Protein backbone atom coordinates (compact mmCIF):
# COMPACT_ATOMS: atom_id res chain seq x y z
CA UNK A 1 0.00 0.00 0.00
CA UNK A 2 1.43 3.42 -0.92
CA UNK A 3 2.35 5.52 2.09
CA UNK A 4 3.07 9.22 2.03
CA UNK A 5 6.25 9.94 3.94
CA UNK A 6 7.62 13.39 4.57
CA UNK A 7 11.07 13.71 3.16
CA UNK A 8 13.65 15.93 4.83
CA UNK A 9 17.08 17.10 3.88
CA UNK A 10 18.43 14.53 6.27
CA UNK A 11 16.58 11.61 4.70
CA UNK A 12 19.12 9.13 3.50
CA UNK A 13 22.04 10.71 5.31
CA UNK A 14 24.01 8.50 7.64
CA UNK A 15 25.45 9.08 11.08
CA UNK A 16 29.03 8.84 9.81
CA UNK A 17 28.52 11.96 7.67
CA UNK A 18 27.81 14.13 10.72
CA UNK A 19 29.58 12.40 13.59
CA UNK A 20 32.61 13.74 15.36
CA UNK A 21 35.49 11.32 15.63
CA UNK A 22 36.97 12.75 18.80
CA UNK A 23 35.85 11.03 22.00
CA UNK A 24 36.78 12.62 25.31
CA UNK A 25 36.93 9.89 27.91
CA UNK A 26 38.16 9.41 31.46
CA UNK A 27 38.33 6.45 33.84
CA UNK A 28 35.62 6.16 36.50
CA UNK A 29 38.20 6.77 39.22
CA UNK A 30 39.17 10.22 37.86
CA UNK A 31 38.04 13.18 39.97
CA UNK A 32 35.22 15.57 39.12
CA UNK A 33 37.83 18.38 38.93
CA UNK A 34 39.60 16.54 36.14
CA UNK A 35 36.29 15.93 34.37
CA UNK A 36 35.53 19.66 34.38
CA UNK A 37 39.05 20.41 33.16
CA UNK A 38 38.46 18.07 30.19
CA UNK A 39 35.01 19.49 29.38
CA UNK A 40 36.35 23.05 29.35
CA UNK A 41 39.53 22.20 27.53
CA UNK A 42 38.01 20.09 24.76
CA UNK A 43 34.75 22.08 24.66
CA UNK A 44 32.46 19.08 24.83
CA UNK A 45 29.21 18.72 26.74
CA UNK A 46 29.80 15.23 28.11
CA UNK A 47 32.51 12.74 28.95
CA UNK A 48 32.54 9.03 28.26
CA UNK A 49 33.47 7.17 31.45
CA UNK A 50 35.36 3.89 31.21
CA UNK A 51 35.64 1.06 33.73
CA UNK A 52 38.77 -0.68 34.96
CA UNK A 53 39.00 -2.73 31.78
CA UNK A 54 38.80 0.44 29.64
CA UNK A 55 35.27 -0.45 28.53
CA UNK A 56 32.62 2.28 28.21
CA UNK A 57 30.60 2.31 31.43
CA UNK A 58 28.65 5.55 31.43
CA UNK A 59 28.42 9.22 30.65
CA UNK A 60 28.93 12.36 32.75
CA UNK A 61 27.29 15.41 31.20
CA UNK A 62 27.47 19.04 32.25
CA UNK A 63 24.03 18.56 33.79
CA UNK A 64 25.32 15.71 35.97
CA UNK A 65 28.22 17.89 37.13
CA UNK A 66 25.86 20.74 37.98
CA UNK A 67 23.76 18.30 40.02
CA UNK A 68 26.95 17.30 41.88
CA UNK A 69 27.76 20.99 42.47
CA UNK A 70 24.24 21.55 43.79
CA UNK A 71 24.46 18.49 46.04
CA UNK A 72 27.67 19.87 47.54
CA UNK A 73 29.85 16.95 46.43
CA UNK A 74 33.56 17.63 46.87
CA UNK A 75 35.53 18.40 43.71
CA UNK A 76 37.61 15.22 44.18
CA UNK A 77 34.57 12.90 44.01
CA UNK A 78 35.21 10.11 41.46
CA UNK A 79 33.35 10.61 38.17
CA UNK A 80 32.14 7.00 38.47
CA UNK A 81 29.96 8.06 41.41
CA UNK A 82 27.95 10.54 39.35
CA UNK A 83 27.95 8.92 35.92
CA UNK A 84 24.81 7.64 34.24
CA UNK A 85 25.20 4.40 32.37
CA UNK A 86 25.33 2.67 30.09
CA UNK A 87 26.01 5.12 27.24
CA UNK A 88 23.31 5.30 24.56
CA UNK A 89 24.72 4.30 21.21
CA UNK A 90 24.07 4.13 17.50
CA UNK A 91 26.00 2.78 14.50
CA UNK A 92 27.90 4.79 11.87
CA UNK A 93 25.59 3.47 9.15
CA UNK A 94 22.35 4.30 10.98
CA UNK A 95 20.17 6.97 9.38
CA UNK A 96 20.62 10.35 11.06
CA UNK A 97 16.85 10.68 11.33
CA UNK A 98 16.55 7.50 13.39
CA UNK A 99 19.47 8.61 15.56
CA UNK A 100 17.70 11.95 16.16
CA UNK A 101 14.51 10.12 17.08
CA UNK A 102 16.46 7.98 19.52
CA UNK A 103 18.03 11.08 21.11
CA UNK A 104 14.66 12.75 21.43
CA UNK A 105 13.05 9.60 22.81
CA UNK A 106 15.64 9.30 25.55
CA UNK A 107 15.93 13.02 26.22
CA UNK A 108 19.67 13.08 25.59
CA UNK A 109 21.78 15.48 23.54
CA UNK A 110 24.26 12.98 22.15
CA UNK A 111 24.78 9.38 21.16
CA UNK A 112 28.05 7.50 21.13
CA UNK A 113 28.78 5.76 17.87
CA UNK A 114 30.00 2.18 18.22
CA UNK A 115 31.93 0.11 15.76
CA UNK A 116 31.72 -3.61 15.15
CA UNK A 117 32.23 -4.36 18.83
CA UNK A 118 29.95 -2.82 21.41
CA UNK A 119 32.95 -1.82 23.51
CA UNK A 120 34.74 0.12 20.78
CA UNK A 121 33.49 3.67 20.39
CA UNK A 122 34.33 5.39 17.13
CA UNK A 123 32.70 8.79 17.60
CA UNK A 124 29.88 10.90 18.96
CA UNK A 125 26.81 12.43 17.37
CA UNK A 126 25.29 15.54 18.92
CA UNK A 127 22.55 17.92 17.83
CA UNK A 128 25.22 20.48 17.05
CA UNK A 129 26.99 18.12 14.66
CA UNK A 130 23.71 17.54 12.81
CA UNK A 131 23.09 21.28 12.53
CA UNK A 132 26.62 21.80 11.23
CA UNK A 133 25.91 19.25 8.51
CA UNK A 134 22.61 20.98 7.63
CA UNK A 135 24.31 24.34 7.52
CA UNK A 136 26.92 22.99 5.16
CA UNK A 137 24.20 21.45 3.00
CA UNK A 138 22.19 24.68 2.86
CA UNK A 139 25.18 26.78 1.91
CA UNK A 140 25.75 24.70 -1.18
CA UNK A 141 22.06 24.62 -2.13
CA UNK A 142 21.13 26.65 -5.25
CA UNK A 143 18.28 28.25 -3.33
CA UNK A 144 20.66 29.44 -0.63
CA UNK A 145 20.79 33.14 0.08
CA UNK A 146 23.64 32.73 2.51
CA UNK A 147 26.34 32.89 -0.12
CA UNK A 148 27.97 36.14 -0.95
CA UNK A 149 26.90 37.72 -4.21
CA UNK A 150 23.70 35.73 -4.45
CA UNK A 151 20.75 38.10 -4.32
CA UNK A 152 17.65 36.86 -2.56
CA UNK A 153 14.77 36.40 -4.95
CA UNK A 154 11.43 37.68 -3.65
CA UNK A 155 9.80 34.33 -4.36
CA UNK A 156 12.37 32.61 -2.18
CA UNK A 157 11.58 34.85 0.72
CA UNK A 158 8.48 32.94 1.76
CA UNK A 159 10.51 29.76 1.99
CA UNK A 160 13.06 31.23 4.28
CA UNK A 161 13.05 30.25 7.92
CA UNK A 162 13.48 32.96 10.51
CA UNK A 163 14.64 32.89 14.08
CA UNK A 164 11.02 33.18 15.29
CA UNK A 165 10.02 29.98 13.47
CA UNK A 166 12.49 27.84 15.35
CA UNK A 167 13.08 29.53 18.71
CA UNK A 168 11.70 28.36 22.03
CA UNK A 169 9.35 31.17 23.01
CA UNK A 170 10.10 31.15 26.70
CA UNK A 171 13.11 31.89 28.88
CA UNK A 172 14.06 31.19 32.46
CA UNK A 173 15.25 34.31 34.21
CA UNK A 174 16.44 35.02 37.72
CA UNK A 175 17.33 38.34 39.36
CA UNK A 176 20.99 39.40 39.54
CA UNK A 177 20.85 39.17 43.32
CA UNK A 178 19.75 35.49 43.24
CA UNK A 179 22.11 32.91 44.70
CA UNK A 180 23.83 30.45 42.37
CA UNK A 181 21.74 27.68 43.99
CA UNK A 182 18.59 29.38 42.66
CA UNK A 183 20.13 29.61 39.20
CA UNK A 184 20.73 25.85 39.26
CA UNK A 185 17.15 25.24 40.40
CA UNK A 186 15.79 27.36 37.53
CA UNK A 187 18.00 25.58 35.01
CA UNK A 188 17.14 22.07 36.21
CA UNK A 189 13.39 22.68 36.48
CA UNK A 190 13.07 23.78 32.87
CA UNK A 191 15.81 21.72 31.23
CA UNK A 192 17.29 24.81 29.61
CA UNK A 193 20.94 25.23 28.71
CA UNK A 194 21.22 28.71 30.16
CA UNK A 195 19.45 31.10 32.51
CA UNK A 196 18.95 34.80 31.83
CA UNK A 197 19.97 37.19 34.60
CA UNK A 198 17.73 40.23 34.84
CA UNK A 199 17.68 43.53 36.69
CA UNK A 200 14.83 44.39 39.08
CA UNK A 201 13.05 46.05 36.17
CA UNK A 202 13.33 42.93 34.04
CA UNK A 203 16.08 44.11 31.67
CA UNK A 204 18.51 41.42 30.49
CA UNK A 205 21.89 41.87 32.23
CA UNK A 206 23.73 38.63 31.58
CA UNK A 207 23.60 34.90 31.07
CA UNK A 208 24.66 31.92 33.12
CA UNK A 209 25.17 28.80 31.03
CA UNK A 210 25.93 25.27 32.15
CA UNK A 211 29.56 25.96 31.28
CA UNK A 212 29.59 29.00 33.59
CA UNK A 213 28.23 26.82 36.39
CA UNK A 214 30.77 24.00 36.06
CA UNK A 215 33.53 26.60 35.85
CA UNK A 216 32.25 28.11 39.12
CA UNK A 217 32.28 24.60 40.66
CA UNK A 218 35.88 24.13 39.48
CA UNK A 219 36.90 27.53 40.87
CA UNK A 220 35.47 26.66 44.28
CA UNK A 221 32.78 29.36 44.19
CA UNK A 222 30.02 28.92 46.77
CA UNK A 223 26.39 28.13 45.88
CA UNK A 224 25.57 31.10 48.09
CA UNK A 225 27.41 33.58 45.82
CA UNK A 226 25.19 35.88 43.78
CA UNK A 227 24.32 35.20 40.14
CA UNK A 228 25.93 38.40 38.84
CA UNK A 229 29.35 37.27 40.14
CA UNK A 230 29.62 34.47 37.56
CA UNK A 231 27.38 35.64 34.71
CA UNK A 232 28.60 36.41 31.20
CA UNK A 233 27.62 39.90 30.12
CA UNK A 234 26.30 41.50 28.03
CA UNK A 235 23.58 39.26 26.59
CA UNK A 236 23.90 38.52 22.88
CA UNK A 237 20.36 39.00 21.58
CA UNK A 238 19.04 38.73 18.04
CA UNK A 239 15.85 40.07 16.57
CA UNK A 240 13.18 37.44 15.97
CA UNK A 241 12.91 38.38 12.28
CA UNK A 242 16.53 37.63 11.44
CA UNK A 243 17.03 34.86 8.88
CA UNK A 244 17.82 31.54 10.52
CA UNK A 245 20.97 30.96 8.46
CA UNK A 246 22.51 34.21 9.74
CA UNK A 247 21.86 33.21 13.33
CA UNK A 248 23.30 29.75 12.67
CA UNK A 249 26.38 31.19 11.04
CA UNK A 250 26.87 33.48 14.01
CA UNK A 251 26.63 30.57 16.45
CA UNK A 252 29.20 28.54 14.52
CA UNK A 253 31.61 31.44 14.11
CA UNK A 254 31.35 32.60 17.68
CA UNK A 255 31.26 29.09 19.09
CA UNK A 256 28.09 29.62 21.12
CA UNK A 257 25.33 27.09 21.59
CA UNK A 258 22.41 29.53 21.87
CA UNK A 259 21.22 33.04 21.18
CA UNK A 260 18.61 35.03 23.02
CA UNK A 261 15.84 36.55 20.94
CA UNK A 262 14.12 39.92 21.25
CA UNK A 263 11.26 41.54 19.37
CA UNK A 264 12.73 45.01 18.96
CA UNK A 265 14.08 46.03 22.36
CA UNK A 266 17.30 44.09 22.88
CA UNK A 267 16.90 44.16 26.67
CA UNK A 268 13.48 42.48 26.53
CA UNK A 269 14.12 38.83 25.79
CA UNK A 270 11.21 36.82 24.41
CA UNK A 271 12.83 33.53 23.57
CA UNK A 272 15.96 31.52 22.97
CA UNK A 273 17.34 29.84 19.87
CA UNK A 274 19.61 26.92 20.56
CA UNK A 275 21.48 24.71 18.15
CA UNK A 276 19.44 21.76 19.39
CA UNK A 277 16.20 23.61 18.53
CA UNK A 278 17.51 23.95 15.00
CA UNK A 279 18.20 20.23 14.76
CA UNK A 280 14.50 19.67 15.49
CA UNK A 281 13.49 21.56 12.34
CA UNK A 282 15.74 19.34 10.26
CA UNK A 283 16.48 22.04 7.74
CA UNK A 284 19.26 24.57 7.91
CA UNK A 285 17.70 27.72 6.61
CA UNK A 286 14.58 27.42 4.49
CA UNK A 287 11.54 25.34 3.71
CA UNK A 288 12.45 24.75 0.10
CA UNK A 289 13.36 21.14 0.66
CA UNK A 290 10.88 20.38 3.40
CA UNK A 291 7.52 20.01 1.66
CA UNK A 292 8.60 17.52 -0.95
CA UNK A 293 6.74 14.36 -0.17
CA UNK A 294 7.56 10.95 -1.28
CA UNK A 295 5.23 8.16 -2.10
CA UNK A 296 6.70 4.81 -1.29
CA UNK A 297 5.14 1.41 -1.28
CA UNK A 298 5.58 -0.96 1.57
Amino acid at each position, binding site marked *: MPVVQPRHVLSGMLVNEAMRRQIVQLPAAAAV*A*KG*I*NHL*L*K*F*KVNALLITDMDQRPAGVVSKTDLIAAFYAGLPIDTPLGDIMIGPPLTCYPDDAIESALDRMRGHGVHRLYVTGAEATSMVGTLSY*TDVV*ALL*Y*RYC*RSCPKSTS*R*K*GVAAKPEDEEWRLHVRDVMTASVVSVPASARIAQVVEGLMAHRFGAVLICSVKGAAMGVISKT*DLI*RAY*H*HGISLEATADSIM*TAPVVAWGQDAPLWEAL*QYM*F*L*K*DVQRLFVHSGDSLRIIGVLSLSDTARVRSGSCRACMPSRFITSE
Partner: protein
Amino acid sequence: MRARDIMDTRFHTLRPDQSIAEAVKTFHDASAAEQKKIFGLMVTDERNRLVGMLSMYDILLFVRPKHAGLWGEMEGLPLEDAFDELLDRVKTIRVSDIMTTDVVTIGPDTHAMVIADVMIKRHIRRLPVVDGQEIVGIVYISDLFNHLLKKFFYNSGK
Protein backbone atom coordinates in the same frame (compact mmCIF):
# COMPACT_ATOMS: atom_id res chain seq x y z
CA MET B 1 74.31 10.87 29.93
CA ARG B 2 71.31 11.24 32.20
CA ALA B 3 68.51 13.71 32.86
CA ARG B 4 70.55 15.57 35.51
CA ASP B 5 73.24 16.36 32.89
CA ILE B 6 70.82 17.74 30.32
CA MET B 7 68.10 19.37 32.38
CA ASP B 8 67.64 23.07 32.84
CA THR B 9 67.56 23.79 36.58
CA ARG B 10 66.26 27.30 36.06
CA PHE B 11 62.59 27.04 35.28
CA HIS B 12 59.49 29.16 35.56
CA THR B 13 56.22 27.92 36.94
CA LEU B 14 52.56 28.87 37.00
CA ARG B 15 49.95 28.58 39.74
CA PRO B 16 46.63 26.81 39.03
CA ASP B 17 44.51 29.87 39.93
CA GLN B 18 46.36 32.30 37.64
CA SER B 19 44.55 33.78 34.66
CA ILE B 20 45.50 32.84 31.11
CA ALA B 21 46.64 36.44 30.54
CA GLU B 22 49.11 36.06 33.41
CA ALA B 23 50.23 32.74 31.98
CA VAL B 24 50.88 34.28 28.56
CA LYS B 25 52.91 37.04 30.21
CA THR B 26 54.94 34.40 32.07
CA PHE B 27 55.61 32.66 28.72
CA HIS B 28 57.03 35.91 27.36
CA ASP B 29 59.04 36.75 30.47
CA ALA B 30 60.46 33.22 30.68
CA SER B 31 61.41 33.27 27.00
CA ALA B 32 63.23 36.59 27.45
CA ALA B 33 65.02 35.44 30.62
CA GLU B 34 66.11 32.10 29.15
CA GLN B 35 66.99 33.45 25.71
CA LYS B 36 64.91 30.75 24.09
CA LYS B 37 61.32 30.31 23.10
CA ILE B 38 59.29 28.72 25.89
CA PHE B 39 56.10 27.00 24.74
CA GLY B 40 55.12 25.19 27.91
CA LEU B 41 55.34 25.74 31.65
CA MET B 42 54.94 23.59 34.73
CA VAL B 43 52.04 24.31 37.08
CA THR B 44 52.75 23.88 40.78
CA ASP B 45 50.64 24.09 43.95
CA GLU B 46 51.45 26.09 47.10
CA ARG B 47 53.82 23.35 48.26
CA ASN B 48 55.68 23.45 44.95
CA ARG B 49 54.40 20.07 43.87
CA LEU B 50 53.78 19.52 40.18
CA VAL B 51 50.04 19.51 39.42
CA GLY B 52 50.02 20.05 35.66
CA MET B 53 51.54 21.59 32.56
CA LEU B 54 50.20 24.38 30.41
CA SER B 55 51.39 24.71 26.85
CA MET B 56 50.52 27.20 24.13
CA TYR B 57 48.83 24.26 22.41
CA ASP B 58 46.36 23.98 25.31
CA ILE B 59 45.50 27.67 24.97
CA LEU B 60 45.06 27.39 21.19
CA LEU B 61 42.86 24.35 21.67
CA PHE B 62 40.63 26.43 23.90
CA VAL B 63 40.54 29.46 21.60
CA ARG B 64 39.80 27.44 18.46
CA PRO B 65 36.05 27.30 17.77
CA LYS B 66 34.53 23.86 17.92
CA HIS B 67 33.32 24.03 14.33
CA ALA B 68 36.50 25.49 12.92
CA GLY B 69 36.20 22.91 10.14
CA LEU B 70 33.39 24.99 8.65
CA TRP B 71 35.62 28.04 8.39
CA GLY B 72 38.10 26.49 6.05
CA GLU B 73 35.73 25.21 3.43
CA MET B 74 33.55 28.27 3.07
CA GLU B 75 34.14 31.55 1.37
CA GLY B 76 32.77 34.92 2.27
CA LEU B 77 32.44 34.33 5.98
CA PRO B 78 32.73 37.48 8.08
CA LEU B 79 35.85 36.45 9.97
CA GLU B 80 37.32 39.86 10.72
CA ASP B 81 35.87 40.36 14.16
CA ALA B 82 35.19 36.72 14.95
CA PHE B 83 38.39 36.31 16.93
CA ASP B 84 37.83 39.15 19.35
CA GLU B 85 34.99 37.45 21.19
CA LEU B 86 36.69 34.08 21.08
CA LEU B 87 39.77 35.56 22.70
CA ASP B 88 37.61 37.46 25.13
CA ARG B 89 36.37 34.17 26.53
CA VAL B 90 39.87 33.36 27.71
CA LYS B 91 39.39 36.01 30.40
CA THR B 92 36.97 33.87 32.37
CA ILE B 93 39.18 30.82 32.69
CA ARG B 94 42.17 29.93 34.82
CA VAL B 95 45.27 27.88 34.27
CA SER B 96 43.72 24.91 36.13
CA ASP B 97 40.73 24.85 33.77
CA ILE B 98 42.71 23.90 30.67
CA MET B 99 46.08 22.62 31.89
CA THR B 100 47.12 19.05 31.15
CA THR B 101 46.87 17.12 34.39
CA ASP B 102 48.35 13.80 33.23
CA VAL B 103 51.96 14.91 33.25
CA VAL B 104 54.68 12.48 32.29
CA THR B 105 57.78 13.01 34.44
CA ILE B 106 61.25 11.54 34.62
CA GLY B 107 63.78 11.10 37.42
CA PRO B 108 67.25 12.72 37.56
CA ASP B 109 68.82 9.37 36.63
CA THR B 110 66.70 8.68 33.54
CA HIS B 111 69.00 7.96 30.61
CA ALA B 112 69.06 10.33 27.62
CA MET B 113 67.96 7.60 25.21
CA VAL B 114 64.99 6.76 27.43
CA ILE B 115 64.11 10.47 27.44
CA ALA B 116 64.29 10.56 23.65
CA ASP B 117 62.09 7.47 23.49
CA VAL B 118 59.45 8.98 25.81
CA MET B 119 59.45 12.25 23.88
CA ILE B 120 59.00 10.53 20.54
CA LYS B 121 56.40 7.99 21.60
CA ARG B 122 54.26 10.45 23.52
CA HIS B 123 54.81 13.55 21.40
CA ILE B 124 56.21 15.51 24.33
CA ARG B 125 58.69 18.36 23.92
CA ARG B 126 59.44 19.01 27.57
CA LEU B 127 59.68 16.69 30.54
CA PRO B 128 59.76 17.78 34.19
CA VAL B 129 62.48 16.09 36.23
CA VAL B 130 61.11 15.10 39.61
CA ASP B 131 63.06 13.76 42.57
CA GLY B 132 60.56 12.36 45.06
CA GLN B 133 58.02 15.19 45.44
CA GLU B 134 60.43 17.91 44.40
CA ILE B 135 60.83 19.39 40.94
CA VAL B 136 64.53 19.62 40.19
CA GLY B 137 64.54 20.65 36.55
CA ILE B 138 63.07 20.33 33.09
CA VAL B 139 64.44 18.70 29.94
CA TYR B 140 63.58 20.44 26.67
CA ILE B 141 63.71 18.53 23.41
CA SER B 142 66.11 21.17 22.03
CA ASP B 143 68.56 20.65 24.91
CA LEU B 144 68.37 16.88 24.53
CA PHE B 145 69.02 17.21 20.81
CA ASN B 146 71.97 19.58 21.28
CA HIS B 147 73.54 17.35 23.93
CA LEU B 148 73.23 14.23 21.82
CA LEU B 149 74.68 15.95 18.74
CA LYS B 150 77.56 17.51 20.66
CA LYS B 151 78.46 14.10 22.03
CA PHE B 152 78.32 12.56 18.57
CA PHE B 153 80.56 15.16 16.94
CA TYR B 154 83.02 15.13 19.86
CA ASN B 155 83.31 11.32 19.80
CA SER B 156 83.83 11.19 16.06
CA GLY B 157 86.64 13.73 16.36
CA LYS B 158 85.03 16.52 14.34
